[in-house]
């Protein structure tokens, strides 16, 4: 059986638009094979959207005490607009620790069969590269999806 893994990066608005187009096409097609394939793609996209949304909500909850009251949205620049301490963003025990704990929490909740002892931390080198909140969400999500 031929299996192809398709991976590409699009933002939330584009994802919703793509999902809408797929669903519209599903309503128009009469071919059961096409309908099955599109249904599978739509379910996968919806699942990714749900995971991304869940990670963002959890990350927002974790970051809130570090932002000096500034409102967190996915596009927020963590250092410049949220005013998060640079040491927290770039040194061990800060954002890297929060992201790793968040990953552990969602794996524990949604993949209960996974052995948490095998779970690796979110790498500090990757965390240091993140400027905006959504980049941290994507990083955690990619780690989660690799499991």
């Amino acid at each position, binding site marked *: 059986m031929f299996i192809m893994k398709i991976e590409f990066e699009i933002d939330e608005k584009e994802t919703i638009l793509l999902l809408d187009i797929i669903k519209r096409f599903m309503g128009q097609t009469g071919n059961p094979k096409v309908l099955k394939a599109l249904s599978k793609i739509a379910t996968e996209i919806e699942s990714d959207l749900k995971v991304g949304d869940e990670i963002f*909500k*959890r990350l927002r*909850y*974790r970051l809130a*005490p*570090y932002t*000096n*009251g*500034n409102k967190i949205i996915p596009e927020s620049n963590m250092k*410049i*607009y949220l*005013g*998060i*301490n*640079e*040491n*927290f963003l*770039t*040194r*061990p*025990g*800060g954002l890297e*620790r*929060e992201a790793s*704990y968040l990953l552990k*929490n969602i794996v524990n*909740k949604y993949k209960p069969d996974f052995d948490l002892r095998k779970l690796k931390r979110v*790498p*500090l*080198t990757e965390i*240091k*590269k993140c*400027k905006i909140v959504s980049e941290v969400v994507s990083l955690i999500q990619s780690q989660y999806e690799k499991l």
Partner: protein
Amino acid sequence: MKNYKLITTLLVLSLSFSTYSQSISVNIGESTTNKLTKDKSAQILATFPKNDSIDDSWLVNGYLEIKLDSVGKKNYSIGILSEIHKNNLISKEQDIRQFGVSLERDFLIRKQITNYDGEIEYATKARFITNATFKSSNNLIKKEKAFIANFGTSFSLERSKKLRFLQTNTRLINIDKGFGKILTITHNHNFGFSYLGGDDKVLLADASFSINLFPFSGLMNKIEQPNFFQVQYNINARTEIVGDTEKDLNTLHTLSAGINYKINKKSSIGIAYSFQDGANPYTALEDQRFETISAKLRLVIE
């Protein structure tokens, strides 16, 4: 000789730890004396006249460090470093070469919190960023070799809404609100001890403080260069605790103003005017007052 043995032992120790390392970084900055000077840009200015009767002119204040980050479970950083401070454009010339190792570790202060799922967890509230360097130092003007050790720590508050003014390395005014569009401010500090070997063998207590002003940061942020204009004031003071030294220990005041172009998150190039008054025994700078205009470079490759 003992000093060289100590440095070799630490070097071997750092290399043996490297098997656990997660990443390696290369840093170029002003001086490894403490965390404040490590994060500052190296200063470079040189001219080489094509005339045998006129000497070359040098102003170099910089270090190169190759560092292993996140070593072991306690997240140590261990590095080897080489440092140069050479200035023959001032009345009391300075020319010192150093080589050694550095050690860095954060001591975290944690707070009990309830996570998203209602479970008890511990989150970082603050940290002490601790830095130690052990260097073999060669003063080429005084023909003096010495062992220098610096140990310093700075407190970093990260989770506190009411005490925001205590947060180091953080803009105390929001860049996108009111006055923050015109000016933002950050500050940092370092406290510690140093051992100065050679002829003196003296233990010193150190204190450093810096304040950075970023004019027009809101405006410059539109081109993603919020730190483009910089005005910086530094004060470095030290006093003898054990032993005596004849070296100048006068408090060093540095005021600088310039432009700084950020290449990436940690690296930058720039040009700055600076006024210095005082001494620095760790870089063989004798007590004097002078002004410079020089190129600045801060480079971090991770």
